[in-house]
């Protein structure tokens, strides 16, 4: 699975939650007021289920979820860590 497809899936999920909006991959979704703790939890569950990863506590930083690009990078980083580990 390429990084583009990871981003596309993340983008689709975010837009699915807020169908009235079109989200660019570098757009700060926090600045749009979309994030609350429930959505953050849904987002983490989506990432863990879709990409078969576990997001460790230390990666649960706001900057890792601010944009689709940041989330894509998080997925790749967690995957590579899992492979190394």
């Amino acid at each position, binding site marked *: 699975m390429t990084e583009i497809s990871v981003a596309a899936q993340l983008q689709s999920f975010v837009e699915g939650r807020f*169908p009235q909006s079109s989200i660019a991959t570098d757009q700060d979704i926090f600045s749009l007021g979309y994030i609350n*703790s429930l959505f953050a939890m849904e987002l983490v569950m989506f990432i863990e289920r879709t990409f078969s990863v576990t997001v460790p506590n230390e990666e649960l*930083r706001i900057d890792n979820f601010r944009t689709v690009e940041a989330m894509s990078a998080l997925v790749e980083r967690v995957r590579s860590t899992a492979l190394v580990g």
Partner: protein
Amino acid sequence: MDIATAAAPRAAAGVDRAAARAFADEHIVPFADAWDRAGAVPEELLEQIARAGLWAPFLPVELGGSGVDMVTLAAVHEEVGRGCSSVRSLLTVHTMASWALQRWGSPAQLDRWARDMAAGRVLGAFCLSEPGAGSDAAGITTTAVREGDGWRLNGVKTWTTGGQRADLFLVFARTESSTVALLVPRASAGVTVRPLDDMLGTRASLIAQIAFEDVLLGPDALLGPSSFASGMVLSGTLDLGRLSVAAGSVGIIQACLEAGADYSTERTVGGSRLKDLPLIRAKLSDMVTDVRAARLLVAEAARLKDAGDPATIMATWVAKYFASTAAARHATEALQIHGALGFSSGHPTGRFYRDAKVAEVIEGSTEIQRLTIADEAFRRWTA
């Protein structure tokens, strides 16, 4: 028998709906009204729950649990809730604390607490509500201030289910920049427990007010992230509590149905059995229908949890909303079917009526649920 020496939990095969139903019929149903009047469950019951492996059977086997899935856990909580909502409430808060530990705990925290929580040697409670803030996390005033590499905790939590007996409190507190979840042993210096007696509902669930006065905690007290994601610890824990309350509400409907069917079969009015009166039959028909619907909603929410599907969060809101409001409605009707008998001290329908109302308030009130569930309409069915 001391709870600390209770036998190890059964294997997964021993924890299922049938086992929980048998447990409830033997150890809960015959005594629930007496516990309700006394305002407390006995220590012996807590030990029996431990021996049956029902405290936290969802924990994995390597952590001392039985590894049951959420569908099974919900069925267990329904059956226990059918017998007594106070007991189910104790399972709910222990489940919340145990799950939060499993999901967010460090290896050291898991090593310290998980096996004891699985076995019921350590009982957990969930401390969010305060005298001035219900489940409104933004309104909490309990503070956690950095003290060296640990924390200094100050504040008061109230309406803490299981608080009179719990050994470990999962406490949510405010820091300078966010909210944190802290594991606070009851034995910590500065912790004071005051029983809250004579509540209207779930009277036997050992509710307490907990004061934390300059409680000093080590760095290992922090559960999960302390930054923006700390809200996820709270949301995730409440989400599972919501599933448990929904399951318990199904149990209340089932109990109302069984009581209503029995009584309307034996009771005659003007030469007719109650069961033959059309308006009584209508009440029982609605109970039969709603208990099936509520059970399916709970099972679906639990199945989505087992699949790790984020749709579980909305599904759990829907299940809890439906099941808790249906329980309150049918407890009212069960009382109506029983007439004055239902108001008698020691008759279970009065207890169902009071306990069902609790389910409409806790883990997200009916009003909050109706606000939240509306999001589904705008997410999925607008152009």
